């Protein structure tokens, strides 16, 4: 195992050679960028599992996984990184165990507790890119605000039944954040969780894989040069699979966290003056 971030071992060349020769990937420079990068995946569920599998396989150097949930039988139809052998284990640790077998060159850290106002800044500051693979609006707003305030790009995915959504937030100066798109939280009564609404494994899996590719694009610098206007991908699994691309708004000047006069600050979050549960109506589906 190589612990130097400035070179690739022969073993790593062999492992990553097939992706390094794809022009869009960016050759050795792309691979070195991946190796140096630090990616935090919040939620090791239906989205997190495939995203983690492909990010680990691709050779992201440092991966953090935060999830306070434990592996349950009802997860296994879609959370393919866990298994019968890791039932009852923290998902982040089950994930780490299996990912380390896939790629021992990746440094993986697990955080077996909830992301909260208290710990979010300290954790986010250790990483370059954040993936939102969670499933409650309150957590999504917390992840967004901390990503904005720490200047981290956020790859945000969601899925339910056979539908999915993916967007990149806070990528550059003119890109929107989650609050730019959704200034008001949804009515708690209108939220359907995976346990109530159900979810088809490959549908949410596809969104998770797409998140991995978008993360690779960000890290390898693809969006620095190429087309880069805010977008949202909307997937439907039925009747025929489709992945629609929508052009989205830029950063909103009146946004309460990324706008010109933001009123959400790091201090207010850390001091629990911002209460995400209250803001979103205290819904806790607790299903990642």
């Amino acid at each position, binding site marked *: 195992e190589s612990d130097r971030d400035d070179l690739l071992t022969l073993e790593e060349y062999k492992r990553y050679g097939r992706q390094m020769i794809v022009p869009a990937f960016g050759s050795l420079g792309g691979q070195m960028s991946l190796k140096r990068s630090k990616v935090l995946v919040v939620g090791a569920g239906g989205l997190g599992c495939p995203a983690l599998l492909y990010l680990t396989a691709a050779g992201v150097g440092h991966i953090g996984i935060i999830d306070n949930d434990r592996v349950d039988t009802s997860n296994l139809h879609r959370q393919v990184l866990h298994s019968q052998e890791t039932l009852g284990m923290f998902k982040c640790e089950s994930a780490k165990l299996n990912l380390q077998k896939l790629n021992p060159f990746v440094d993986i850290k697990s955080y077996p507790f909830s992301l909260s106002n208290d710990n979010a800044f300290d954790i986010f500051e250790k990483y370059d890119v954040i993936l939102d*693979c969670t499933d409650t609006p309150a957590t999504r707003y917390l992840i967004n605000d901390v990503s904005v305030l720490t200047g981290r790009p956020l790859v945000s995915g*969601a*899925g339910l039944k056979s539908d999915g959504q993916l967007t990149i937030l806070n990528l550059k100066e003119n890109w929107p954040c989650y609050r730019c798109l959704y200034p008001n939280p*949804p009515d708690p009564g209108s939220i359907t969780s995976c346990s109530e609404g159900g979810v088809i494994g490959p549908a*949410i899996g596809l969104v998770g894989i797409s998140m991995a590719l978008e993360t690779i694009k960000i890290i390898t610098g693809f969006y620095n040069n190429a087309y880069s206007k805010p977008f949202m991908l*909307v997937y439907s699994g039925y009747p025929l699979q489709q992945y*629609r691309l929508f052009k*989205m708004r830029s950063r909103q000047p009146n946004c309460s966290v990324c706008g010109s006069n933001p009123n959400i600050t790091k201090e207010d979050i850390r001091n629990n003056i911002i209460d995400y549960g209250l803001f979103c109506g205290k819904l806790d589906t607790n299903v990642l």
Partner: protein
Amino acid sequence: MGIKIKVEFLGGLDVISSGVREHKCILPLEEGDATLKDVIQFITKNVITDPKDIPVFICDETVRPGILVLINDTDWELEGGEDYVVESGDVFTFTSTLHGG
């Protein structure tokens, strides 16, 4: 005459129209006179199957927070929002925001 438009529901929002995702509609107004506001009105009256479901779509007289509105695959914020002037052939897509992971 009226204006030919297409209305689509994604992200499970087709529950308000008996599971039908795509609706080809004739908006009974003249081109130039109709805005997205009229389309929303039209949907509540003619596309939503059961009036009980109107609150799933509407809140405070506009589209409920959490529903994204796209005009010809572009966020309505970039197209003038509710005041967008409808043209023949326009596609209006409404998708509920998903939170599952």
